[in-house]
């Protein structure tokens, strides 16, 4: 299981702030998790679409598509930041 978090517009679009996801054996990277979540349906397809500005963090560190994911990790998806 991994803990997956969604923030800001993504959280609203998906109607979800956090969830536990059971990882299939072949989901071992950020890119694979993104593809796995997108397969859930239209809302997911749109929110996580390739080419859409999307940032990912693994265990609270900025990650990229190739970053590995292991059971127990915390993975967060969010839009580009707009603080300050």
């Amino acid at each position, binding site marked *: 299981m991994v803990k997956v978090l969604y923030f*800001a517009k993504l959280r609203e679009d998906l109607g979800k702030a956090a969830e536990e996801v059971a990882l299939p054996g072949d989901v071992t990277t950020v890119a694979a998790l993104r593809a796995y979540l997108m397969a859930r349906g239209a809302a997911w397809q749109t929110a996580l679409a390739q080419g859409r500005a999307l940032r990912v963090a693994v265990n*609270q560190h900025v990650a990229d598509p190739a970053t590995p994911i292991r059971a127990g990790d915390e993975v*967060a998806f*969010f*839009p*580009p*930041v*707009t603080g*300050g």
Partner: protein
Amino acid sequence: MPVRVQTGDFDIGREIAALRAANPKVGAVASFIGTVRDVNDGDAVSALTLEHYPGMTEQALEGIVAAARLRWRIIDATVIHRVGELKPLDQIVLVVIVGEHRGDAFAACEFIMDYLKTRAPFWKKEQTPQGGRWVEARTSDDTAAERWARPEQDAA
């Protein structure tokens, strides 16, 4: 605590006094306050909601302050960022730097703000007459942060 994320307001006078703390080595105090405007992209803004990623946000801010300390000669820094619902005129963010001389204090203050705006996980949603909308990231903020890049030693 050099870095704080909080819903409540802050008092710059108190924060500066705490940072100087009767330290006679301090010869320069530089600060920046960001405040809520009542207009953005041509629309009236009646309120702003700030969201963050508890844990990662604090860590990101601490990392930015640490990077500034490596790069400039400063004595100490305070960064406070508010979250939750804010109104026009409210204070959003405070950066205070104390150092020996103004050059490094000014530069560190500006660097921290530029990096905060592009790297710390905060998101703004504004209320306009057309309803709520998430603020889009600006390329001008990326450009501002990129000014500080030093290819030979910048690690992301």
